[in-house]
């Protein structure tokens, strides 16, 4: 095999520890102070990126791209940390990363960006992404990319890929009940929407960061604007439902008494 072309689709989401408050904007629903919220690389996409880099190390001649759709200024901030993790070439697209945008439009933009990659060879192409995003959480985008690129095979909720010497590969996909569906695929091209995989987050590597940043800044400068929005979705109501519970605090009570209360509750 002459190496894989692994394209990872991934963008930014608000840091999961931030409090999110929906607001109405002229473009549709949004988040209060959205441009000010600290962002992270979408967690599932991040796993996909780390798995891509790991796979590229195993298959000589492989290369990893990160195709990222988001506000250019926020992408630049994000790259300060992400670029230190693993080697990749950034393809930036300047547009909204809101969870309220329509996945159909997003997948079209991503597919166009992938199709335009110089030297793209579909026979070596693996498209990675998260199985969902922490913003839209739709699990629709990667299928749209798959269809638009004319790729026949897609795997969702992936935790493992093992490439065989003949170019075929074995995939583990999460299914109901904590089980894995085990499949073999004849080989690239394919789309893999990752769950968490099995790799830890790589430590920051300044050398990788410096190498990546040489390509990141030009990529950001030539990022094309993309008019992604809510598309055909008509939002009627966007809210945070009240979830405050009147919590009863039980303290200074022996463990045996707590256990009795818990067992009675369990059996009720």
């Amino acid at each position, binding site marked *: 095999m002459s190496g894989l072309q692994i394209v990872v689709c991934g963008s930014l989401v608000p840091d999961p520890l931030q409090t999110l408050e929906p607001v109405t904007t002229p473009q549709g629903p949004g988040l209060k102070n959205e441009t000010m919220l600290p962002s992270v690389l979408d967690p599932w996409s991040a796993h996909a990126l780390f798995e891509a880099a790991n796979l590229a190390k195993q298959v000589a001649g492989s290369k990893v791209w990160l195709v990222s759709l988001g506000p250019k200024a926020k992408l630049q901030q994000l790259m300060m940390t992400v670029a230190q993790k693993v080697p990749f070439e950034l393809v930036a697209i300047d547009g909204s990363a809101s969870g309220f945008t329509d*996945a159909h439009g997003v997948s079209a933009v991503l597919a166009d960006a992938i199709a335009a990659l110089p030297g793209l060879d579909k026979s070596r192409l693996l498209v990675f992404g998260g199985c969902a995003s922490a913003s*839209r959480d739709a699990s629709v985008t990667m299928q749209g990319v798959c269809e638009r690129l004319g790729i026949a095979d897609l795997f969702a909720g992936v935790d493992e890929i093992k490439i065989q010497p003949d170019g075929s590969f074995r995939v583990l996909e999460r299914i109901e009940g904590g*089980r894995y569906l*085990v499949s073999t695929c004849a080989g690239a091209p394919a789309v893999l929407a990752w769950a*968490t995989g099995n790799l*830890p987050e790589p430590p920051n590597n300044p050398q990788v960061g410096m190498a990546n940043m040489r390509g990141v800044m030009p990529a950001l400068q030539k990022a094309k604007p993309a008019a992604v929005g809510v598309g055909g979705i008509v939002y009627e109501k966007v809210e945070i439902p009240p979830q405050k519970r009147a919590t009863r605090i039980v303290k200074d009570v022996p463990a045996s008494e707590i256990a*009795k209360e818990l*067992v009675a509750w369990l059996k009720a």
Partner: protein
Amino acid sequence: MKILALVHTDNGALPKAALETVATAANLGGTLTVGVMGAQAGTAVQAVAGCGATKFLVVEDPAVAQPRYATDAAAATALIQASGAELVLAPNSSRFARALPGAAHRVAAQVDTHVVAVTAEGGNVKAQRWFYRQRILATFSRTARPWLLLVDSGINAPWQGPSAQIHVEPVAVAFPAETQRTTVTGIQAPAADAQTIRPEAAILFVAGAGWTKKQKDGQYHIGEAGALIQGFLSKAKASLGSSKSLVDLKSEGQETLSFMSHMNQVGQTGSTPRHPKGLSTCCHGEEPHAVGWRFINERRAINLDGNCGWAQGKADVVYVADAFDVMTQVNALLE
């Protein structure tokens, strides 16, 4: 309005999620068609004979006996086209979550997943789903048709009624060789006695990283923690959830609970299971309490910190106690 309840078989029968979808679709009014794909679809569809559907379409070609994107998307496309449906309801199973967004693209449909409610009044269809990982709830509609809605399981009551012989219309689908580049070779599952994820369990037991920290004697008790947790799971027939920090320990090479994996994780990058009750132990984060617990009805927590901001207001009861002590006693009482 023409509605298609699109479902798949599981081991030759309609699973609970499929029956829920049929019931939900039947309650919307309109002209209902039931479409079933998968092994023994023609037999399985008889379980919903009395649901009020005017047509029963099936694809039971051997190619759809296994869950595979290319063949499933092709079969679903054919069923949607054969039904002429404007609205398609389907279960948000792993099989359909994989394939139906692709089928939607092929029939120029719009698709929304993880739908938690759907209504249709006077032909005006509205759906509800969560955004930002169960933090923000939106009610919305689309004017474009067809519209595919993948409905989460565990929300609606399943269809119940007697089976009957019905006229079933097979739908022909071509499955060229390029749709079968992938072969499902099996299912990898823990041994029955080692299975810790039980979607139908009455209780979700969430373990936090506190189980793997130094305890009051200054020592680690990871083996004891594992025995206590597994003992409880076995006795209470509970499902096991975990905080991210606990499952991350394993991938970071630290000693942790051997039976725990990322599959157990609830919250931001984990699942948001639906169980009637939840008991969280040694958790001190937002994920198990705010995100992973979104769909847990009754919630209790055992926590050394009574002022834990994530437990307060999220749990019904917080027991300020040592989880090792409490769970030892709970297990003894459950003997």
